């Protein structure tokens, strides 16, 4: 079913908000329903249902600027938006890698720099709305060169796909180079994302740690 995807943008640059409005205005299948300079602002003024139908629903995808001037933490912003029922695509002017990694760990579904084409942005929004998650070379680069202490252990294959995709190759080309199918290559990227998500979860009890070890395939003997 070709439902229209509702999108909101949170960014403290008014010029970007205006630009986004005119950019997305011409895209079929996507409707920009709200813009705000803060997450507070967005959540307070829930999108007015234009169809006049019932209560305000959370929009499908929120484009969230990585760094907001109100000093809020990306992690908190993402959790609040997820809590409100939206999916989050993080955007920023410059890829501040440590923050990008942290944002994905906190549950964001994708990351793009703002210099991407409209078609790339629309594809990412559609992927995220469909629950597939979005990959991008800039995100792969942040993961590939993450030097943080919480970096999950990646398999050599995962590393290779990550590096090749980060270097600008299409997923298809990266897969061909590795001698695997594009679907498998995407699986690898998805796995990396999952590993990062899991590394972000706090483990409280021994039972949970044991379960985590099983999930991560650490107890293979």
């Amino acid at each position, binding site marked *: 079913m070709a439902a229209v995807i509702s999108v909101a943008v949170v960014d403290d640059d008014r010029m970007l908000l205006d630009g986004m409005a005119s950019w997305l205005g011409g895209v079929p299948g996507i409707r920009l329903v709200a813009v705000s300079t803060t997450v507070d602002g967005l959540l307070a003024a829930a999108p007015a249902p234009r169809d006049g139908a019932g209560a305000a629903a959370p929009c499908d995808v929120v484009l969230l600027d990585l760094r907001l001037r109100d000093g809020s933490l990306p992690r908190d912003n993402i959790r609040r938006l997820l809590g409100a029922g939206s999916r989050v695509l993080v955007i920023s002017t410059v890829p501040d890698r440590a923050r990008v990694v942290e944002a994905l760990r906190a549950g964001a579904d994708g990351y793009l720099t703002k210099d991407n084409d409209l078609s790339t942005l629309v594809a990412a929004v559609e992927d995220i709305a469909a629950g597939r998650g979005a990959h991008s070379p800039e995100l792969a680069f942040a993961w590939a060169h993450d030097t943080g202490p919480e970096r999950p252990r990646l398999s050599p294959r995962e590393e290779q796909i990550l590096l090749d995709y980060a*270097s600008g190759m299409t997923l298809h080309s990266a897969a061909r180079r590795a001698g695997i199918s594009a679907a498998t290559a995407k699986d690898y990227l998805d796995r990396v994302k999952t590993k990062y998500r899991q590394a972000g979860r706090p483990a409280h009890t021994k039972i949970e740690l044991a379960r985590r070890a099983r999930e991560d395939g650490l107890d293979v003997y």
Partner: protein
Amino acid sequence: MGAQAEFVGVSGVQGWARALWGMRGAQDRARLGSGIQRAQAFMVLATLLYRASHLVVGVLAVVPERLGDPTACPGTVAALAVSALVYGTALRDGWFDRRYVWADVLVTGCLLPLAAAASGGAREPGAFAWAMLLSTSASAVAAVALPGLWPVVVVAVLVATNLPGYLLARADAAVVTGHVNSLVWSALIAWVFWRYLCRQGCQLDEATERAVTAEAHKARYAERLEHHRALHDTVLATLTALAGGGIDGNDPRVRARCAQDAAYLRRLVEQTSGSEPRREIGAALEEAIRSAESLGMRVTARFHDLPAVPPKAAGAVGDAVREALNNVHRHAGTGHAYVTATGQPDSGDGVTVTVVDRGSGFDPERHVPGLGLRSSVHGRMAEAGGAALVEGAPDEGVRVELRWPR
């Protein structure tokens, strides 16, 4: 600090040899070591010559005449052995080992004169003068090598152990006074030389450090100025023109220029976000990317942890990137290329650069339109000790990987 560490390996022999024969060029200066090390090398040499003059007396004058003297032969051998130990280690390590200096003081300075006086030469001071002479060079090396007031103690001990020898031989007061005078002045002169050279060395080191700091400061200033100039010619000029009004922001040319300026700023942030901006490789990549942009290409650049590489390698990488970008411009049928440059964590100062496009690619089985690219990129990298890899498939773009070192 890093430069200091390199000096540690300088051995005394090389040090004083160079100090004597003169230096050639900055590299020799660096290998020669700091001012203090040069002072040490000189003092090792000076006291060695002093001791050598006494050993010559001991060997030449004593051995032929007094082979029958029970202390002369073993005594000379002992003096030679201890001297070899003291100076052998000092030449090897660059400075005296205090333990051996103490051994020298005790054996050559105290025991030997006493033994020589007590055995064969007790009747006549001239007979054991060679042993007394060795005592004065022991006094000199102790004055240089021992800290604080220890040289004073050593001179006192030497006087106290040499006097009984003269008393046994009933030597003239003039001879005894002369010897004590020699002991004291040998120590004093050596000590004054050493302090003076030390001070000069320290001043030299400070001056060198100031010069190095000033040089680094100058380099940073030049770099900043370069950035400012580039910002002035790009971002500032564009913004000023836009702020003046009358320009259509939607004009594709205006947008292309803005995009280029933004890309420049982005690279600037990428390059300087690491620990230290790496001038050589960063500047080489920047130049190659800008020349591609001037052809109307869009280049997405990502850098991580750029290492410091020799200018020649950076130049080769820059040229190879330029070639690869030219190839994208001419053959790929796409105006967009991706350049990534990252340090190689496992090989220290290595760097890996990829130039990737998503264009028409080539069929490696059938024909190789990238042949020109392949040879030019390979040639440049190989010459600088690096390697290049060109890969592609039909409709899957081209991937050029440059590595340095190989």
